[in-house]
């Protein structure tokens, strides 16, 4: 009933000279708002209790040193200790490598998908969405099997006579990048494809009718129009790489220590909650800063990819 009353307020009430029992309408609107709040509150409470509270708590912890004194020691050590600096450098190197690989592989794929007839595109999309929904562990295991010393790639290359010694493909930087690229690729392809689908083909045809070659049409019209979609994919992939744990932990062979692994070691192995929390706070800050910067630059929704899942 109240919904009806609210719309009455907008239409009828304004035209009447005396207020149409305005108090009752306001009460109705308030009840409506409380009802909606009641619908939201269980979910919000859960998110608040399990995400906001613990992270706030960790943030608080990170401000104190081992003796319980308020200090910046947990943050200062990032600049002082070489091992932390190495972790950050590795993390950004991996993130850059994976993001670049995703762009190089994902752009042509998304472009192809956007140009295919709908039916063919939806069949090809299954190949993108199925891995997306397959456990990260399963895919990491697959790459371990494929890339290990006596794995598929090495034994095939040796059989073909391309190499005589197995290449070190797993348990190192290369393995981490290959495995992570496989996992991150759909995060780039899906938003990029979605944005390419919205590019008006008429503009491209107009360009070609005016004498532009296919290459020039792509370079001067299509590519610039696809940049916002590409940027949104790049930011998502980069940000997810920074905090990624499973694949580097399993495919890095203990040699490639990324941010998230360092957090796990610091808290689980050394029980140094302050230091681990400080790492988490900085990681979260960098993540939010990158997303915020992107949103500010492009005014786009950086989380659009999730609705594609």
């Amino acid at each position: 009933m109240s919904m009806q009353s609210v719309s009455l307020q907008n239409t009828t009430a304004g035209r009447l000279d005396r207020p149409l029992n305005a108090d009752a309408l306001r009460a109705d609107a308030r009840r409506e708002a409380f009802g909606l709040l009641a619908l939201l509150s269980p979910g919000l409470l859960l998110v608040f209790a399990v995400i906001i509270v613990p992270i706030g708590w960790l943030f608080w912890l990170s401000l104190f040193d081992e003796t319980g004194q308020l200090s910046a020691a947990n943050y200062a050590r990032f600049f002082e200790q070489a091992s932390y600096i190495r972790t950050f450098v590795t993390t950004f190197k991996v993130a850059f490598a994976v993001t670049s690989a995703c762009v190089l592989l994902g752009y042509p794929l998304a472009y192809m998908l956007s140009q295919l007839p709908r039916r063919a595109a939806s069949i090809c999309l299954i190949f993108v969405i199925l891995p997306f929904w397959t456990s990260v562990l399963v895919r990491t295991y697959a790459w371990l099997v494929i890339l290990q010393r006596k794995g598929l790639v090495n034994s095939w290359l040796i059989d073909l006579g391309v190499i005589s010694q197995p290449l070190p493909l797993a348990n190192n930087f290369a393995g981490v990048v290959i495995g992570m690229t496989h996992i991150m690729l759909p995060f780039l392809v899906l938003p990029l494809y979605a944005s390419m689908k919205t590019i008006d083909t008429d503009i491209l045809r107009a360009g070609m009718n005016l004498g532009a070659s296919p290459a020039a049409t792509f370079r001067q019209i299509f590519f610039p129009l696809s940049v916002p979609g590409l940027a949104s994919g790049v930011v998502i992939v980069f940000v997810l790489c920074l905090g990624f744990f499973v694949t580097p932990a399993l495919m890095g062979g203990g040699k490639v220590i990324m941010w998230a692994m360092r957090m796990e070691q610091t808290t689980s192995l050394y029980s140094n909650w302050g230091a681990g929390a400080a790492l988490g706070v900085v990681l979260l800050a960098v993540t939010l800063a990158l997303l915020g910067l992107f949103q500010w630059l492009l005014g786009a929704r950086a989380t659009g990819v999730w609705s594609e899942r």
Partner: protein
Amino acid sequence: MSVENSLPISHRQRLWLYLLGGLVLLFLIAPSVIIVIMSFSGSTLLQFPPQEWSLRWYESYFGSLEWRDATIVSVKVAVMTMIVATPLGTAAAYAINIGTLRLTGAINALLTASLIIPVILIGIGTFFLYARIGLNNTLTGLVIAHTVQALPLVVLTVLSGLRSYDMNQEKVARSLGANLFSAFRQVTMPQIRFSIVSGALFAFITSFDEVVVSLFISGGETTTLTRRMFNALRDQIDPTIAAISTCLIVLSIVLLSAAQFLGRGR
């Protein structure tokens, strides 16, 4: 919309693009295919293609008490997560869709925060919180943590269903005397039930596949399948995991097809 192929570029000129795109698709799908084939290998060496075929890794999976217990824990948690996350997410999506509340944007951001916050931070934070309230190594704790992670997917899926639904129908029902709940149940829900079921399936698989948070907060009797797999992979490459992986791939295919089928059912 029939202009998709109307650019004056022939398929022949596009051949390189199809080739490149095809290779990338192969890159995406090949690992899963290889694992499925290898899981039927008779040898411990994980050769490809396998020299002999057998079901020994499936026998070793289903015969192992540890793997079976872990699977049961994961199924239990995923089912409960689905049961909790679906109504919570649907209710939240409904309220967000009405959009008359102030701060709707902020509420939306909060509900989907777990998609953006690095999952390792959620894992450590949850462990830290649970250690104080005694929820570590409990099914309840796992369900709560997984629900928070599944919630955004349910919200987004149901929200997209609601956006293509005409809310005036519900207003009509309410103007005819139905209260909010029965108007939703009898008028709106039947029309968005496919989104709700898709959201539920996504919640299930999110929970079932979740690794990082489970790594921190599960253990002992409540060790999830993914936690046990992660630890096994750290030690050595056990071919039993190929059989488990194949089961997980099949599960993804089944759930995705169900979601796809339901989506088309409209």
